[in-house]
């Protein structure tokens, strides 16, 4: 996992900057996520749930050292909020490889709240729409 995370960090490099339009969550962000624990993940999209109250998508992240694949759940804003930021439900497709910057869940599950998504194939940055607010 750490290897994959380091690789994803290199891939994203300094070209990536935060597009910090924070969205609000329908529940307490700080109760679910630990803003002191950012994480960078790279993986192939396995499922997209374009649903309320928050979009979830899932990626398979491979540990380069052990070869073990872990499926991560990644949360974004609501479909309406993401649409207002320029997303559509076709912005990210199954099997796309994405670089994700996110905030880890507090409960230890393979869940994180997305801040940015970059399509690895062309470097296109999909707007993030974290459900974290401006002042956690």
């Amino acid at each position, binding site marked *: 996992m750490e290897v994959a995370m380091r690789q994803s960090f290199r891939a994203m490099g300094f070209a990536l900057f935060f597009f910090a339009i*924070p*969205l*609000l*969550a*329908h*529940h*307490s962000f*700080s*109760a*679910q996520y630990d803003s002191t624990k950012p994480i960078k993940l790279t993986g192939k999209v396995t499922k997209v*749930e374009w*649903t*309320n*109250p*928050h979009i*979830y998508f899932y990626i398979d992240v491979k540990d380069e050292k052990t070869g073990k694949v872990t499926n991560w*759940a990644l*949360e974004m804003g*609501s479909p*309406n*909020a993401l*649409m*207002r*930021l*320029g997303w*559509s439900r076709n912005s990210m497709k199954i099997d796309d490889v994405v670089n994700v910057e996110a905030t880890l*869940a*507090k*409960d230890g*599950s393979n*869940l994180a709240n997305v801040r940015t998504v970059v399509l690895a194939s062309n470097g296109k940055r999909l707007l993030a729409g974290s459900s974290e*607010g*401006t*002042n956690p």
Partner: protein
Amino acid sequence: MTLTVFCATVHAQWVKVPAARTPLGADGKPNLAAPAPRLPDGKPDLSGIWEPISPKYLRDLAADLKPGEVPYQPWAKALVDSRADGSHAREESDANCLPQGIPKIAAAPAPWKIIQLPGNVVILHEAFNLWRQVFLDGRQFAEDLNPSWLGYSIGKWDGDTLVVDSRGFNGKTWLDQAGKPTTEALHVTERYRRKNFGTLEIQITIDDPKAYTKPWTVTEEVRLVLNTDLLEFICNENNRDLAHLPGSSLQ
């Protein structure tokens, strides 16, 4: 940037959308500092789509007050203290896709729309597809209101300010994510004043003698959202967050 995003918004869902009735500045851009529009009866027209400017009142309705200025009853203070670390987040109504309550719904995510009609103001909330009615026809509250999430509202004009009184709450909502409690004794007074075309000020007085020793007042502002409209938001479609939030299930 904002306008670009919102223009894209409309076109993403509809085509051939007529331009909104919006004053333009010399540069041809919407002039949100223009005076508030008025209706033929001379009253300000509060109609429009509004959204919170900042999440701070969602997090803490008393964000602008000094520490200690919320006049808690002792049990309410103890309850808020116990909720401060987020350990009861699962017990908040919104996290369960149940209504946010008044006044939190105005500070919560998703825009909301005021439709001002003669004798009646309707507020449509995109969040969870909820609505409020504010009756301005002189009716009064019944003695024994059914408990409800968003209350019953009557209104009247005080000059250019719409004063909305709401009662008949169920006491199950939190005033903010910090967990300030409400009881069935809650009485909320909202004073809506459209400061200019793009800004709506809401002065909120919380009067809940079972939870607070005296009424307390805060003022928040929301901003007009141009070139978008409300969209369906069915919260319980796929609420995966609840399982990851600490706390007990709602009773």
